[in-house]
């Protein structure tokens, strides 16, 4: 009945996972939802484990969500922000991580501006690595919380039509969503200006819509991405106003759809650009349930990656260390 390391050592993305593993994470997240509804929002599961949140890019919601997940599992947590760390003094990523590891940590949650940084780190340290977003590659826990939110609403993922709208080019959220949704049997489309779609998007097995009206008509759910203004150094779109006019998700457009379309957004929103306020706050928006699910999904991932070290049982038996058993 036990299986050590059902996900392996690290969570680097949804691409390397099987559909069964993704479903296991979603199923495990279910009971974790209840913990956040308790008066005492804490279980002792990760007591004594140390988790480092290593953030080389600004993030509030993802970091806070991970921190809540870690603390509700009783882990000890440390936040390291790149701007305040020795990284700004020229230390390499591996040196930073090895120094943290020398202080006996168990897990690293990392966000990094370079695609592949999490995999690079995972190969070089013994601690579990959880990718909290690497460049434009993947943001697996966001993909998982989107899947959980869709499953909560539709009771299934298989056969759903989900369209990812907007800035797919810069979006690791889009990539994790596409992998996760397709592995669980959903139909996936993307919609956005051609300048904001990756050139090889067709190879990911998705439908491409160039008109948001067509995308809305096709979809059961829209995952509206944030226009990543800070990553756009030049000329991807003529203006925000024009973007809103042609690609904005507005109430008028949704009202013309043949069915109610569920609205997801990974946040933070640019209200009035990719999404209008009355959609974001409307009856079909699950933007806040996404945030709630984020904590549960991250608790599930931390739990499934943790423990399972038989050598600690041996050490406990021979009295060499105070093992948990």
């Amino acid at each position, binding site marked *: 009945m036990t299986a050590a390391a059902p996900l392996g050592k690290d969570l680097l993305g949804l691409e390397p996972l099987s559909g069964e593993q993704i479903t296991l994470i979603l199923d*495990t997240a279910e009971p974790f939802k*209840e913990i956040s509804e308790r008066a005492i929002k804490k279980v*002792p599961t990760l007591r004594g484990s140390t988790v480092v949140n290593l953030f080389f890019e600004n993030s509030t919601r993802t970091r806070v969500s991970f921190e809540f997940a870690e603390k509700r599992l009783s882990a000890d947590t440390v936040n390291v922000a790149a701007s305040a760390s020795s990284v700004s003094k020229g230390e390499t990523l591996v040196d930073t991580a090895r120094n943290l590891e020398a202080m006996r940590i168990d897990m690293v949650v990392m966000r990094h501006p370079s695609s592949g940084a999490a995999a690079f780190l995972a190969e070089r340290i013994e601690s579990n690595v959880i990718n909290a977003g690497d460049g434009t590659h993947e943001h697996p826990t966001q993909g998982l919380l989107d899947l959980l939110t869709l499953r909560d609403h539709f009771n299934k993922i298989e056969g759903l039509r989900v369209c990812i709208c907007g800035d797919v080019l810069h979006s690791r959220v889009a990539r994790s969503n596409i992998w996760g949704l397709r592995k669980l049997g959903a139909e996936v489309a993307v919609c956005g200006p051609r300048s904001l779609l990756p050139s090889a998007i067709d190879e990911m097995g998705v439908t491409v819509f160039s008109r948001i009206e067509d995308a809305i008509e096709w979809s059961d759910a829209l995952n509206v991405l944030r226009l990543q203004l800070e990553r756009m150094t030049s000329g991807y779109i003529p203006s925000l106003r024009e973007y809103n006019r042609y690609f904005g998700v507005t109430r008028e457009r949704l009202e013309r759809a043949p069915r109610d379309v569920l609205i997801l957004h990974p946040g933070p929103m640019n209200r009035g650009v990719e999404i209008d306020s009355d959609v974001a706050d409307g009856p079909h928006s699950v933007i806040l349930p996404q945030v709630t699910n984020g904590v549960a999904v991250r608790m599930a991932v931390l739990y499934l990656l943790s*423990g399972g070290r038989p050598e600690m*049982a041996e050490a406990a038996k021979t009295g060499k260390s105070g093992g*948990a*058993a």
Partner: protein
Amino acid sequence: MTEHTETILDANAVERTLRRMAGEIVEANGGTDNLIIVGIQRRGVQLADRIVALINASDGVTVPRGALDITLYRDDLQTIGPRPVVGATDIPGAIDGSTVVIVDDVLFTGRTIRAALDELADFGRPARIELAVLIDRGGRELPIQPDVVGRKVEARPGDRVDVLVEDLDGRSAVVLVSKRFE
């Protein structure tokens, strides 16, 4: 080495035993006021459901029934690793001041009950916590004793006591599985 299987309780015996346990729970508490029956996932929940139904049949009162999954309170995560399936925990209302009867299928080392006590404490402060088990097979590793016991079984350390329930196993019985060198 062969597996030797012996039926300790058949479906009728399980029913009779649970009826007696339900009676003892109500008698020991002088009625059903403030009583909450909490089953431990998974088979303790099925047994708790049946005890609640038996109390209803005899006393005409539906006692609140909760479920406790103690997976996240285990003391062997670091060594054995995560149990892939974590069940639901559902405690009906506030437990402060009430009498909580924990129901489990088999009492062995007592570690599950230790974890259940820790978890219950996170939900409040019951006036009293009692333990009812269908089978007590001995072999305790902690100072924990049941208040209501269905049947005591002499089982050796390598033996297994399986409690089968309708919903999960298709039949109701208690089976002792022992390995023997022939």
